[in-house]
């Protein structure tokens, strides 16, 4: 029984396109038992050939429109391999490293291609590719990143209100802030000077709906001093899944700094949670996520919205470790005691997997927004990352934090406390053993991805350890988190 979304006898263009989409999705729901078996498979092989085709043969002419996003095209491709548990051979790795290094700008940061201006978004994509394919040493990519110039480039984009331009003469938005903070965390570039005021800016992008907008006003025009209150600082644009992920991940990355500073900006967590859960479509939409209220479901929001729930857990919302130890099991009357399922998360993880498997896969390889659209590199990665995040429970482990803390080797650097905390936080994310819920059977299992970086845990760990000059203690097989541990 999958009821259609009502239009209350009052059709408008929004309800009409909703109805058309439901019609298409309905056709992708298997109705026979035999069909369920066949259609519940993640077609890893044909997605692999799609990705190999892009990597080896290249991208057709219509991708000229993404010529300024060459790092993204390559990141989406190689990270999709990682999620699919496929490693690259040394020959291809070297070719990839050489290509990435051709994008580094002489004045710091990476551009969208050789000779293109440095920009925060391709800088994130380039550094992430190097985390996957690169290594220390000559021609390895890691030691060829000019960190000093990159830091100067970051500072040159900083505005008085704590925000950053994405590139010189360009816009301010939270995507750029997420990219900058992720790179700064991975490469050990975080300083109080760099992120002062940034958290307040991010907070100002939360809208009345609970999700985050692209930016807030005044955004980049502040050449003078900050406007005094009560100058309004309204978000520009409505709450949106992509911006919400970026804002929330930035918020998580800023926690180590906030813990040490006097800045105390806040966001409305319960309104954010409410907005996020409402982005999940109903059963006729197969539980896919939409990116804005009253818009259509789209596979890429599996990551931007679905992936946001892990970030919430790091901020104390949801997950067994945040559960109140004083609680008693509560039965909503549907049969199962809820307590047993409390670690399943706050959204319907199984339904989201159904959307990606049934509707997100293109029959000739690659993944997509929704049928009958074509697959592309972007949707292939974010559908797979979203699927991975729905399969696994990755959470910031207190136990891991403790291990990292004990192994930390102090240095005389002025920012050592901030460095230590950032290092601990980013590497404390741990996959809970035995807590995976894989729709369609174990063959559909993907690698777990890091909820903040969207790299695998291993790639995040190796790169971070290198740049912080730390030895990361080996991971012990973690015991499943239990209710008993929650009160500790």
């Amino acid at each position, binding site marked *: 029984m999958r009821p259609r979304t009502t239009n*209350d006898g009052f059709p408008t263009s929004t309800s009409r396109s909703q109805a058309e989409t439901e019609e298409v999705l309905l056709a992708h729901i298997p109705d026979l038992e035999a069909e369920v078996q066949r259609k519940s498979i993640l077609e890893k092989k044909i997605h692999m050939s799609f990705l190999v085709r892009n990597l080896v043969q290249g991208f057709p002419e219509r991708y000229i429109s993404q010529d300024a996003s060459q790092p993204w095209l390559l990141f989406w491709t190689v990270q999709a391999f990682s999620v699919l548990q496929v490693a690259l051979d040394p020959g291809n790795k070297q070719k990839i490293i050489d290509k990435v290094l051709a994008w580094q700008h002489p004045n710091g940061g990476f551009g*969208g291609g050789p000779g293109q201006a440095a920009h925060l978004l391709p800088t994130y994509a380039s550094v992430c590719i190097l985390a996957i394919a690169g290594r220390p040493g000559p021609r390895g990519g890691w030691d060829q990143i000019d960190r000093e110039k990159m830091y100067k480039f970051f500072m040159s984009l900083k505005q008085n209100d704590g925000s950053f331009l994405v590139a010189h003469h360009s816009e301010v938005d939270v995507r750029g802030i997420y990219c900058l903070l992720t790179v700064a965390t991975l490469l050990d570039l975080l300083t109080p000077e760099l992120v002062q005021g940034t958290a307040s800016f991010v907070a100002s992008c939360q809208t009345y709906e609970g999700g985050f907008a692209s930016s807030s006003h005044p955004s980049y025009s502040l050449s003078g001093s900050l406007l005094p209150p009560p100058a309004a600082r309204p978000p520009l644009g409505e709450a949106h899944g992509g911006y919400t992920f970026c804002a929330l991940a930035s918020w998580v990355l800023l926690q180590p700094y906030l813990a040490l500073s006097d800045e105390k900006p806040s966001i409305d967590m319960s309104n954010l949670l409410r907005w996020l859960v409402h982005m999940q479509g109903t059963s006729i939409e197969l539980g896919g996520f939409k990116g804005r209220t009253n818009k259509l479901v789209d596979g890429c929001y599996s990551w931007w919205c679905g992936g946001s729930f892990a970030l919430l857990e790091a901020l104390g919302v949801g997950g067994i470790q945040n559960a109140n130890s004083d609680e008693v099991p509560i039965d909503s009357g549907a049969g199962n005691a809820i307590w047993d399922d409390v670690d399943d998360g706050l959204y319907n993880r199984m339904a989201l997997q159904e959307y990606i498997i049934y509707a997100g896969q293109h029959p000739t390889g690659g993944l997509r927004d929704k049928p009958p659209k074509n697959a592309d590199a972007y949707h292939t990665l974010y559908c797979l990352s979203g699927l991975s995040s729905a399969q696994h429970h990755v959470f910031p482990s207190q136990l891991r934090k403790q291990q990292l803390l004990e192994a930390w080797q102090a240095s005389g650097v002025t920012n050592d406390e901030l460095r230590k905390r950032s290092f601990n936080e980013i590497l404390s994310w741990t996959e809970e053993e035995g807590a995976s819920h894989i729709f369609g059977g174990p063959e559909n299992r993907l690698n777990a991805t890091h909820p903040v970086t969207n790299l695998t845990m291993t790639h995040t760990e190796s790169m971070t350890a290198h740049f912080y000059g730390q030895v990361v203690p080996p991971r012990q097989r973690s015991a499943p988190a239990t209710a008993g541990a929650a009160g500790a």
Partner: protein
Amino acid sequence: MPKKPQYDEPLFAELPEWADVKPVEQYEGVNPVAPIFYTPEYTDATNYFRAIVQSGEKSARVLDLTENIIRQNPAHYSAWQYRYETLIALLPTPTPSSHPLLTAEVELMDELAVLFLKTYQVWHHRRLLVQITREPQRELAFIKKGLEADSKNYHTWSYRQWILGFFGGKGSISKDGDEEIDEDLWASELDFVDVLLANDVRNNSAWHHRFFVVWACGVREGEEDRDRVLKRELIYSKQSISLAPSNPSAWNYLRGILTHTHTPFPLVSTFAQAYAYPRDPQASDKQREIVDLENPLPSDTAELPCAEAMEFLADAWESEGGQDKIEAAVKMWTSLANERDVMRKKYWEHRIRDAHVALRGELKKKAA
């Protein structure tokens, strides 16, 4: 559809006026994985662009070159960035607010914005230009046309809000650094939203814009009586809900204005009651005789119960607290979890847990 580059035009490599420039290939000494299959026209233009960036030349022909690239790939942010720098270099100093070069640029932008509506750069370049020309009214008219073509375009909406905030926001800074409030800019903004919501009451972008205009960006002239404004907006949202109750945009707006004005949710409970339960055929005729403007009833074709109304009522009860109200809220959440909104079962159960924990804390406090 984007205009195809004109292939009968000669390549830059064939033009005598470019003969002094030595084109720069993209990848030298690198055999790139994942190449893009470029057209000869695109390779040609970007080879010359790389050469120009290296030499730092900022001349009139650079405007031709960057326009050529932008038409082939409007997301080429470096071409936009360099074009802007070139334009500024070609204008006299200090930069005048009107100049033939600027006029031509604005006209070109009008053409390109329509062609490449979904590109960040076309909208951002307009921002840079309008800060020089300082003609926001013209922009509002232009955006209006754009929204007729695509009424939910994110860039278009955020650009409109930026224009209003930058040129008309309380405390915005004029060219000379003085405070400037351009109230005229806002004059027809609410009417504009009304028209869009009349066309599609489910257009969330328009609802967000309404919030921006009425609440988020200062107080307009004639809107100083906030109680009256709140009353007006409450009636507006309730009437919108009565037309099509299962419309999360309208409910989110209603919640938003209550929260923004610190108005308790229970103040709207009476209204929500009529939407939160299955239709009662006997009661409805009697009720319908009484026209209560404050609490409009659901339309005859509305599907009840409406999940948004159930959620609202439960939240209102939870905010009141006390055992009876919490139990009523829990009952409502249970019904959402098991019947009306099963997809969000985990969330409703989370709410139930939280409410129980809070209630137990409340009772403990009383006992102590």
